[in-house]
């Protein structure tokens, strides 16, 4: 019995798939792919970028990423993002966002994406992909500034979202987050740019000392009323002389 005559444009029904004809069949023919066996989904990150820190301060948002993660930039938009996780997935994500923003630019209808819109889009995208069991293996921090308000949000490969005055990605949860919270929580509206830079520099230093996968070369970015500013690569001064005196934890002979 064909309950939907006329909706399938003359294509024959297939009783094997839908014996009772409960739905227009053309709409849900299972897709077959000659290369189905070869199709793979990201099940673990391959080339990974490092990490991102972000905090709210008086004038907006400030982020720091060491140069392992500062691959490319979205500085031409009204907000910025640095992603950590799988590089290929990140580039795919950038590509999708680029396409979306070009489309919006071409429409030229006076409506522009702000940070909240970008964040909503990315959250839905990430959640959609996790629901297909085909996740984009990244965690994203979205920072922006629009209409006098700063915005900071997080979304990860599960589609989990949240915002807070300070954010960091997974690897830095135990090292950087307590430092950030101690110096930022409750002071978001009074922190100056200099103080914010100092806090991030402090975190980068501790991270470089303690995280084996970090690099003493990083960038800082600020999103404020004035727009986006991204620093050149910089380093922090480090002191290793004390290491000479440490005994008892390594493979020393003496």
């Amino acid at each position, binding site marked *: 019995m064909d309950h939907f005559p006329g909706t399938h444009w003359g294509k024959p029904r297939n009783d094997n798939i839908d014996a009772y004809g409960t739905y227009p069949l053309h709409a849900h023919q299972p897709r077959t792919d000659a290369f189905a066996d070869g199709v793979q*989904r*990201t*099940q*673990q990150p391959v080339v990974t970028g490092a990490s991102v820190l972000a905090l709210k301060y008086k004038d907006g948002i400030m982020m720091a990423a060491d140069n392992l993660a500062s691959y490319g930039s979205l500085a031409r938009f009204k907000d910025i993002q640095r992603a950590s996780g799988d590089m290929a997935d990140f580039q795919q994500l950038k590509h999708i966002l680029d396409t979306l923003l070009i489309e919006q630019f071409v429409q030229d209808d006076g409506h522009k994406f702000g940070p909240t819109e970008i964040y909503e889009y990315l959250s839905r995208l990430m*959640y959609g992909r*996790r*629901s297909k*069991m085909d*996740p984009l293996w990244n965690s994203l921090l979205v920072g922006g500034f629009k209409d006098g308000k700063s915005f900071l949000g*997080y979304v990860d490969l*599960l*589609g*989990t*979202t*949240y*915002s*807070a005055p300070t954010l960091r990605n997974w690897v830095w*949860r*135990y090292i950087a*987050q307590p430092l950030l919270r101690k110096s930022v929580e409750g002071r978001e509206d009074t922190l100056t740019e200099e103080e914010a830079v100092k806090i991030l520099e402090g975190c980068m230093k501790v991270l470089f000392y303690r995280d084996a996968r970090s690099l003493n070369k990083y960038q800082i970015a600020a999103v404020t009323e004035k727009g986006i500013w991204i620093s050149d690569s910089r380093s922090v001064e480090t002191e290793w002389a004390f290491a000479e005196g440490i005994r008892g934890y390594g493979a020393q002979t003496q």
Partner: protein
Amino acid sequence: MSPISQPTSVAFNPYAENGGTILAIAGLDFAVVAGDTRQSEGYSIQTRYAPKVFRLTDKATLAVNGFAADGNIFVKTVKQRLEWYRHAHAKDMPLRAIARLIQTMLYAKRFFPYYVYNILGGIEEDGSGAVYSFDPVGSYEREACRAAGAASSLIQPFLDNQIYFKNQVAVSGTSHPKHLPILDVLSLVTDSFTSATERHIEVGDGLEIYVIVASGRSLTELSSIAGIEEVTGSASATDRVFVIRRELKKD
């Protein structure tokens, strides 16, 4: 170089557990729906303020707990369905209909469930306070009170004792009250959450208590509460919604 590597990877796990606890109590002509605002994963606090209780209409609030991403999407979809209902019927969906809608939406994903425990609280068409609780795949029930989430096993027995008077014997010649006064209910809610915060690491930071009051009920008791805020949506609404925010310990 090694030959083809062994298939050692663990399959991608699309779920996470984000902690927190929710709770709802129905009164005679009011309902109270509360949740803490901490969102965590493992031992890390992701944020100290992620609301878990949402106003759906002027007679319904929904609390969601479990996997936060699923919860947020679920609430969004419920709100969208309610908006469509408003456009189609020029009125808000009644509470028991929202409850059935939620069961259908949950069961529709029976084989890839929303990993979310829902508690719906509000005012029924007959003006009575009501609480509906759901499991992740849609099985639901109308109750007088329910706790769900990380500290549900700490709070539910307390409510059984204080709301249902389980293991309590009334003084001879008297009987236990069927419904508690609103201020008693609110102190039970705050006590539940401060206690759960003491004993459960995933509970804390902030508390949001939504109070839905049936039309015709006096609001004098509520006006004495510090920091109470009205969040009723439409000016013509007869039932009214309030929110009370409290701090919880942050350690």
